[in-house]
């Protein structure tokens, strides 16, 4: 756990502190393209995640959402 937290903090700080270019609003054309969305299709990814959750043990701990079992 400590190792995990450390790794995360390192990543976040690296992203924040280390060499992030200042991207002006008019330079964000590429970032606004649909293929660049972090989650291009929320309904699809929610269903996909639910399918994994019911088949794999590593289910919890991510999104702050609830949900049922569906877990035969």
């Amino acid at each position, binding site marked *: 756990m400590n190792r995990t937290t450390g790794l995360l903090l390192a990543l976040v700080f690296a992203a924040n502190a280390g060499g992030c270019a200042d991207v002006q609003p008019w330079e964000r054309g590429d970032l606004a393209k649909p293929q660049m969305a972090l989650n291009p299709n929320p309904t699809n990814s929610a269903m996909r995640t639910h399918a994994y959750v019911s088949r794999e043990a590593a289910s919890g701990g991510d999104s702050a959402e609830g949900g049922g079992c569906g877990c*035969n």
Partner: protein
Amino acid sequence: MAATESKSRRGALRALTAAALALPGLVSHARADGDEFSFEFRHYEEGKRDLAEQTYKDLNLRPITVDSAAASMRGEIVDRVKFDLNFTQDTWSGATPVVTVPVAAISDQLFSGASSPVSYSADSKGKPVDVNWNTFNGRTVKYTKDPRLVHVMASASPETRRQADFGLGYEWDEITLGLGGGISEEHDYHSRFVNLAGTWDLDRKLTVLSWGASYTHSDIDASLAANAAADWGAYLNQIHDKKGVATLFGTRQDFSANVGATQVLNKDALLEASIGYTRSSGYLSNPYKAVMLAFDDPDQYIDSTGLRTVVLKGTLEQRPTLRNQWSLDTRYVQYIDQFDAALHVDYRFYHDDWGIDAHTLDVSWYQPLGDGWMIVPGARYYSQTKASFYRPYFLFDQAFPILFPRNPELPPNLDHSQIHVKNFSSDERLSAYGTLNAQLAVSKQLSSNMRFELGAEYFDHAGSLKLGGGGEGSFADFKAYTIYANLNIGAGAAAVAAHVNDAGVYDEYSAYEFKGGHAPAGVSYDHMLTRAGDFQIAYRYTLGYQSGEMVHGSHSIGDLAIVDHGCGDRQCLVTPENFFAHAQTLDLLYAPADWWTLVLTPGLVDRHMDLRDLAGRPFFPSGIFNPGPVESHSHTTGGIGDTALTALIELFDDGENHLHAGLGISAPTGRVNERISGSEEFDNYAMQLGSGTWDFHPSLTYTGQLDRFSWGAQLSAIKRIESKNRAGYALGGEFQSTAWGSYDFLDWLSASLRGVYTSEGRIKGEFEAHRVPSIVAYKFVGTEIVAVYENAYLPNSVLGPMESPANYGGRYLDVGFGFSAVVPEGHLQGNRFSVEWLQPVTSDVTGYQLARKGTLSISWNIAM
């Protein structure tokens, strides 16, 4: 004209604002700008597992399938206040592993003919062996070592899970706050949840911090009927009788929290990272999973063959009642200028205090192909270590620890105080394994605000795929695939922005145009589209409800008459008490030309029936030699229903009066071989998911309107093209005539009154005979008499009137009361919601049937 111009200018302005604001933080946190509707159908199917000596066919089993549907809606209520509503349904059916045993136990079982594995033979070192008893010469016998393991599968009770949830969000300039909640319902698992989440934009949105927390409370009440042989172990005090069935009651709580950050790295790359923690407590086991405890008594008597007997006993799995879980999620997105493509790399590390560490790496490539097409190939790798209390089965060097209960009428149990392991599970999902997936999605932007996506995913789940090797044996391996179709209307800020880039214009939502009037919610195929090339979508839900007394002809009838006459030449034991038939369909309309419209109607259906014992039913003493017929009292089925494709052809239209003909073909995509949980018997005809036959659906529809009045009439029929389906029967044909009138009280609200006459034919044929293990002889094994089973072809049991084809069909007269509302302005402008209740007036049923109580129809015509 002026109105149109100002509309499109406003649209373009909104789209440009959206483009400027279309930043990852907003998009990823599901508060995308612009209204959006999304629908998805998804089918998951596992391949067959290696069952060693047996096959799925021998055992009348089918691998797990899951049919899911989701509908969601996001939008803005007033400035800065966002909402989302989501509905998801999934139906599970098929066989899953219940326990794992050495193959040697199955060999012994098949030889002895016992109905489940009770022991296996082992050599002097305790290793499992397959014994060839035909070589027994009175003193010695030939045997071979067999280290293989195998799952014992059982058809889980098919079940449908429904989840509804909502979210409300408020957006300040740099901060968003969201509150959500929902419920998830299955017959054995009931969840309620709330969540709170927020984001904080820093540095002109180059950095977005996010956080969330949620709480879920779940109540479990799982019937142990299908797992009746298992010892109850630690759950003795949680198991109570519910409607005559031993039922396990439990509660569970999950608390989750996460924090994360999204960072724009440069003008072509961004990174999201988050950590999450979940604490789960309470009943965390799976009530349908058992564990085989094996007892190799060191002091057992060894006869001249030198073989040891290891005694097996199944017991409900016992997981710890607390689980702490941590996860780290990272997502990296890189724009590849050369190809105008995006590379997505997601990595997740997971750790819990059950001993499971898991890594997930998901890589996909988003490649636009021009003209609105996008192709997304991807791969996913998942690997986990096993839980500390997982083993395929648990072997103890001790005698079977019998506990004689205080009540001498109860069978002896396991004395758990003599078993030193407190937590045990053989659920293969807690074993060590890896999964490798290949996936492909193709999407097409159909119009400025509508996107259609098709996708497929193939899974290879294997112990040998675990990172670093050393995973579970190959008995637990399986392959699976998923296919899905997704339709997105309004397509969110990102797509809108893209459209501005491509074309420079963005159409405001406009209500679709149609010919003919809108009929009440219960009438299908009531309108056509006006212009060639138009699309339209409607969502439709219907619930048919039957309950209470039994009816014969048009009169209610007592139990004794049903016992004597309801089941042909046998006596009935049970009868239906409640029946719910749910159907959800999408009507996808497309006009190839002005004069005709094509309608495709895919859908999901699910059914539930409760039975009761008939008063005065004959009594069958149960016992080994005469196991009385057993009927479960609660049946559920569900999955994809039949799919119809219909052409609506205009015959006459003068602006006030409209007439069109419908020519439809229904494909038998709904299953007709649904079986009763834990049995080889087909579930009754009403519980099957489709007709099983190709059907012809002709119809003729007339609509008229004048001022605030509209009216219409429709004749429709169903003709079965085939004489029987794969299960051996064909449903009766159907004829329906209906007429309605409606009046617009307000510009946006109308009320309707409708009459319906339906005539439904009787079922032709019946369920074909199916294989059932039957006792054909008895023989000596050692000193014991055991029954010898063989598969025999037997007709489907008729224990109640719903199982006899003579009790289907009839003539019905119903009256319908409905309302229909159109959203006059705002973000949902042009959406039409209709609801109708059909109340039975007279019924004349064929044979003996449960009384019809009514039909609820809800439809939603989506403005695009």
